[in-house]
Each structure stands twice: as structure tokens, then as C-alpha cells.
């Protein structure tokens, strides 16, 4: 995948991060995605996607406070950057254009 494009999984991850807004960290993203997509998400795969998106500049992250749970480990909160927003919009726009370009007859399934 090129530097400025993202895959389907990455797109979903970014959208979920946006949905969760200030509360997007590992487990919450995972839970949200599982809830909405109705499929299990591998934590490792997701973490790699997050790291990659961050490297591409579509996400930023910062550590939260130390808590007693989680073995005392800090959470890493993610946020979508303006660039991230731009690429998400771009993807949505392409999709919409594609939808619009479909002739109505193409999806007109009738069983004769």
C-alpha cells in the first residue's frame, strides 16, 4: 500500500477512532469495531494498523494517565489528524461517485 493510501481495515480503524473521539484507545477501538462490524478483531493486527496510520500522519497519539488497572500501564489515546480527515473524505467521495455512476438497471434484480 502506498504512502498516501489506506486499506479497508485501516479505513475502518480510522473511522472508529473518529467515532470514539477522545476515548479512542486499544481496547475501546477493538470493542467498538467488534460491535459495529460484528466480527472479531485481532489486537495485534489492529495495533500494527494504528502504528502504520500514525507513521503515515493520519493519526496522532498520546499517553493517558497511569491507573491501577491494566497492570499499571498507560493507555495510548488516538486522534484523527486533518490529513486523516482529508483522506477519509476522499475515500467517501470516490465511493459516492461510484455509487452515483451505477446505472439503475444494474442493481435491478428481478427473478423471472
Amino acid at each position, binding site marked *: 500500500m502506498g504512502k498516501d493510501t489506506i486499506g479497508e481495515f485501516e479505513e475502518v480503524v480510522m473511522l472508529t477512532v473518529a467515532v470514539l473521539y477522545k476515548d479512542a*484507545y*486499544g*481496547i475501546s477501538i*477493538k470493542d467498538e469495531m467488534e460491535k459495529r462490524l460484528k466480527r472479531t478483531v*485481532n*489486537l*495485534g*493486527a489492529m*495495533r*500494527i494498523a494504528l*502504528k*502504520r496510520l500514525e507513521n503515515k500522519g493520519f493519526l496522532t497519539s498520546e*499517553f493517558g494517565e497511569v491507573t*491501577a*488497572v*491494566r*497492570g*499499571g*500501564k*498507560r*493507555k*495510548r489515546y488516538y486522534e484523527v489528524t486533518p490529513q486523516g480527515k482529508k483522506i477519509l473524505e476522499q475515500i467517501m467521495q470516490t465511493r459516492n461517485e461510484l455509487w452515483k455512476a451505477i446505472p439503475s438497471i444494474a442493481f435491478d434484480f428481478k427473478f423471472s
Partner: protein
Amino acid sequence: MSQSSPIQPPKRTLNFFRWFCDPDILEDLEGDLVELFEERADNNLFKAKALFTRDVLLMLRPGIIKNFEGHKNLNTYGMLKNYLKSAWRNFLKHKSFSTINILSLSIGIAACMVIFLFIQDELSFDTFHTKKESIYRLNEVQSFPGTNTQNVALSMPGMGPTMTKEFPEIQNFTRFWNWKKQLVEKENKKIMVENIAGVDSTFFDIFDFKFLHGNSENALNNPNNAIISEEVAIKFFDRVDVLDETLVINGDHCIIKGVIENVPENSHLQFDIILSIRVATKNRPNFDAQFGSNSLNTYFVLNKSADLENMSSRYPQYLLKHMDEGINDLYKLYLQPLSEIHLSSTDIEHDYNNYRKFNGTYIDVFIMVAIFILLIASLNFMNLTTARASNRAKEVGVRKTIGAVKGQLFNQFIVESILMSMIALLVAVAIEVLSLPLLNHVIGRQLSILTFLDPQLIGITIGVTLIIGIMAGLYPSLYLSAFKPIIVLKGFKSYEKKSFFRSSLVVTQFSLALGMIICTLVVIQQLHYVKNKDVGFNKDHILLVDMNEEVNKNYDALKQALLKKSNVLGVTASSQRLGNNLHQWGFKLKRDSGVVSITPSNVYVDYDYLDVYGIELIEGRTFNNEFATDDGLAFIVNEAFVKEFGIENPIGQKVGHGWYHNDSLGSIIGVTKDFNFNSLHFAVNTLAMEVHSSWGYHEISIKINGENVSQALEDIENVYNQFVTDYPLSYEFLDSQFEEIYQSDQQMSSVITIIAALSILIGSMGLFGLASISVKRRIKEVGIRKVMGASKSEILLILSKSFALMILLSFIIATPFTYFFLSRWLDNFAYRIQINPLIFIAGGVFALVIALLTISFHVLKVASANPVKSLKYE
């Protein structure tokens, strides 16, 4: 959830995760994992722990595992990785060179593996018997008057039972009486079965053949019991569980009491059906005490403490007890261990039950050849790596400047060398897999690469390859790591000198290769000689047809009918087949001083035998059925016979069989030129031939028109079926008999030829690589010479000279060793070629031409290059 609670993720798994996880993402990811765990732990702690472990294992993926190299960890992975990387880059940079290097070693290893398989196959003979250590075969040394002294695998029927009684060391015995091809019937199915033998009931106690059905213990208790092989069972019944079925074998109704797995390839005893020996001795009550004629093999099981030498001191006494005075002048007995039967029986004659008998001394030759080729390949590898060192000089210089110490560089090059040899091993295995089927076809074996799947063998193979890698890498590594950085970085030129070491490696390689080429040429020449030597009779296009009583009864009519066919050139019959030693019979010769007993080889034949086989008479006449006395009282002997007994006027000399009365002997009517009825490994023995028309023969010999073989076969079959109804036609060509007796030699020749070709190939590959380097080094010299006016041919000469010198030196070294080896091998044959010095020269010239052709590619390139190009840079 307090921290002191026992709800903690598995410690070890967590530590493992901490160990492999990239530290940049460790903290939050660990937190996530632990959070998940804590959530789950509320429900089911055990399950949560399991899931935690699963999650951690799923984290083992590229983006999460930390980078295990470099400064982050104080270990040598990074350096090792760098070594591998530079080895790989070097490989790619000099593709042709590396390919030559690896391929030549692969070929060497592959050849070695094949030879190993071959040897292993030969050594595996008869190793599947549990009593193999204590089984012996009874052999005789016969020194009959008037015949060559010979070792014989046969013994007398009485020997087994009586020796077992009289020698406490002998625990058990079995006799093996080969009845060869027999007619087997089941209702209306009539099939000739190849190998039928009669044995004692102890046979299956002594030898282990695997029973599929039935029990080995009482299998042969009844004289009418039969044990058949799987193959025979399927042939007759289309199934294997055929216990208690009946087969009619040679007229006897036999009940199947066992079905065994087909006899394995590596058994010297081969049989399709085993019968009780009693089936043939029902009317011979004295069989177990019968002495005099040798007709079967006897095997003994000795107890552990048996002392062979002590036993052999008692044989003369034993023989005297059972036979006449003077027996010990004629016979000596000895026991041959089972393990030697397959490989050490080449000097034993009348050895009819020794499947694929192989000359064991060839095993040593093969081992030697394997070592040679491996040596050539390793030397080559070493040589090429060293020669390439100049390419790596800069690398060494830079590494040393940065701080590499000698030991590190040494390790680097050793690792590289080991790596190359391991790749070579893989390639070798691939070569093996591809070439084995073809090879199996050439040498008639069923070798399989799967033999190497044994863990011990895998270990040895890898170990040997490792040693080759280390040995071959040792010199280059020492050489390279000893470079002084200041000299190599300043420019390698000043560091170059002629390498005596490298040249001597090339000389060694070529000496070995040359030796093998010459051996190949001589071996091929000898085998060609053996195959095409005029043996004194016509052995081409002779068809041998088995006979039984019925065929014998109809023989005369059949013969006349056959002779009417245009493609049948002659029909005769005899008691034995040419192509091995003919049986020796007691014989009488009338002298002035009285009648002497002698024991020449003997065969009884049809009247026209000499004509059909084209055996030449030098004196007297051939048999003629118009003379009544020619049936039984006329003898034709060979030249060797006349010479051996110093008969001055052979024609009319009174002679006769041992049982003839002294007053009613027959006479010699003709003397033939010596013909080689035995293999050319042996000198011609004395021979007498006669006609006994009423006795019946064993084989018809039909001489057919070689240009129309298939038509002839068809005619013969038609005629045969008109006269013989109950005994199916079964025939063989005489040529195949002769092929069989030289099989061992032929196979050795094939293997040596292949190995010689490979060794010259490897040698040439090495030379090719070497030439490319040494020629490149002289590129400036060539440039200057050209500028000064040297012509292209002069340059070619100058460049080729040093290589030609090396070949010449190899030739001088190889010649004496090769000569010595070859003359020893040729001594195996009673009829041998003389080693022609021209062969040595031919071999040398061949090697030289190959070498010059190999280097010509590089030499021509350099010689025709534009001098401006090579002199431009200084």
C-alpha cells in the same frame, strides 16, 4: 480489582511478550492485553489465562516483534546477519562464478551419495536373517586330476545330515537344491515357474523369509508341502490367502502351507516356490547318506563358540570316514560365512544360487572413487574460493580498518563457506532425485534416495558437508583474514604473486581426473574385448529352449519340423549351457602304464552340436549318427585336454566315463580348438563331449536367422506347440547368459565412466573459474605485449602455457598409479588386453584438450581485447 489480587496474567507468557515486543509499543499494548485479561478474568480465570496466552502468541507478527539486531542488544545477531548479507551480495555479484563453485561441489556430493547408495545396497545382502552371524555355506575346493583346481559352492547330499551329527559345533543344517524352471499346473492353468527349490524342513528356521499366510514352523513337515511367493499365488489364484490349495508341480500334487512375501532383492537365495526336498527323494532312501556327486548347496548354523579352524582340521577325518581312500587329495571342505556369499564369491564356480553375485573388491574401488570425487570437488571449491579472494581484498581492508579483528574475519569466511556447502548439499539432493531413476536403469538397481531419510544418515551427510565446508573454507579464510589493510587498500596489485598452493590443487585434481579417464578407457576396452573376443563358438542368435520328458520324447520330430523353417539355421541339444563352468565328471584315460582316472568338464550333446555352434575341429571328425559306436563310445575332447595329458596321437586314444569298464572304453574321435565355455575370467578347462542319445537333454539350442528374429520366434512357437502340448515353450537367448556373467564388471565400468565424466566436468569447472581470474590478472600484461607487437596467436600461447604445464604435470603424476591399479584389475581376467601406452597418451591429450577448450573462452576474450581499454587506467 486490587493489585494484590491473584488475578494476574500468566507471568511467563507476559515476560515472553515483554521480551519479543517492540519497546516502542510495548507499554500501551501490554496495558491493552492486561485489560482484556482482567475483563475476562471476572468470568473465568482459567479461560482468561488461556486466552491471554493465545493473544500473546497472536502478537508474533512482523510489526510487533522487536528488531533483534544492532546496538539495541548486545549480541552478534546483527553481525551474523551482515555476514549473510555480504555473502549473498557477493554471490549475486559473481553469479557465474558462484554457480560454478556450488554446482561443482553439488555434483561431487551427489556422486558420492549415489556411490554410497550403491555400496549400501550391496552390503545389505542377506542382512535380514536374524541368525546371519552364525549361518555358513559349505563349499568345497576340488582338485581333480586333469582339471583346474576350483572352489565350488556345491556339496554332496549326505554332507548336511552327517556333518550335523558328527560336528557338535553345527546346530542345524538345510540343503537348498535348485530345481530351476518347472511346470506348475492348477486345473487347466499351466505356467512355467522360474525358480523352484527343494529344501530341508529346517529351512525357515535358519533363514527368515516373511510369511504372509501360514506358519514358518511346521511349513515343510510333510513332503508334499509347498511354500509359494505372493507373486506365484496371484499368478495362479488371483489372491494371496491360498493356504491348503493344491498345485501340481512337476507332476507332484503339492499343498500350499505358506505364502511368503516375494523374496527381497537383497537375498542371495532367490526362489518362487519352496518344496520339501523329500518330494524328490521319495524313491531314494539313501539320499541323506549319499556321497560322490555334488548337486546342491548346504547351509549350517553354528553355535557361538564354534572355531572354524578347529573344525577344518577334522574335515579330512570326516571325509575319510564316508568316502574312499584318497578322497582328501581331491576334496577340501570349508565354510563360507553368509555375509561373504554375495561379495566374496567371484572365485567360486558352480555357484548357481547366488543372485546378483558381485565382486566385492569393486566395493573398495567404489569407495576410493567416491573419496576421489569428493576430494576433487572440495579442492575445487577451495581453489575457487581462494582465487576469488582478490575480489574480497577491499572488503577485508575496510572491515579491518573499522575494527574487525582477524578472528572475526576468519569466522565470516568460514560461515560463508559452510553456507555455500549447505546450498551445494541441497542442490545435490535435487540432482539425486532427478538422476536416480535414469541411473537405476543403467546399473539395474533399485536405489532410492529415501534411504537417506534415516536420522543417522542425515546426520552423517550434513556432518560431512559441514566438514567439507570447513575444510574448504579453512585456507581461503586464513588467507583472506591475513590481508594487511594498508596494503590491500592501497591497491591489491602489489599483493599478488603466483600461488604455488593453488596450482598444486589444480594438479592434484587433474591427476585424479586423468587417472579416472584412463581407467575408464582401459576398462571399456577390456570389456569390449571380453564381449567381442572370439570365444571359439557362435553365441549370437542362439535360442535356448527348456526341455522336459515330453519335449525329449518328441525331440527328433520337433527338430526335423523346425529345420524345415527357413529362419531356423540349426537345431541341436545338450545337457548343459555354455557360458559357465561345465560339470566335471570322473573320466578314464588308457595309458601304457594302465588306466588313469581324471576329471575333465563334461557335456553330452546331440550329433550336430559342433556344427550348430560352429566349434572348430583341429583333428579327427565330428559325431555321426551313422556310426553306432558314436552313441556313447565316441568322445570329442578339446586342445586343453590333449595338452594337459600329453596325448601324442589323440585320435583313437582309449577313453571313457568313470563308470565304464576298463576293457570297454570308447575312443577319441576328434579334437576341437579350445573354446571358452566358461567366462573369460577363467582359463579354458579340459573338456570331453559325447553323445548319449537315449538320456534326454536339458536344452535345445536353436540357431536362428538374425535378420528375422521375430518371424523365427513365431515359427518356433508354432512348431513347438504342434509337438508339445503339456509343457509351455520357454526360451532364453544365449547372449543374455553371457551378459550375466560380466554383469559385475559391466556395472563397475558404468559407474567408473560416469564418475570419470563427472570428475573431468568438476575439474573443468574449476579450471574455468580459475582461468577467468588468472587471465584477468594478466590483462595489463597482455595489453602491453599487444602494444609492443605481439600477435594474437602468440598471446594465446603465452596464456595457455601455464595451464598446459599443469596438465602435463598431472599426467606424469597420474600415470604410474593408474598403471598399477589397472594391471591389478586386468589380472582378474584369464583373457585380458595388454595396456596400451597409447591409451595413456590419449587420456592425457583428451584432458589437455578439455582444459584448453575450457580456458579458451577467457583467453580468447583477453587476447582479442583492445589494448587501449586495458591500459587506459593506471
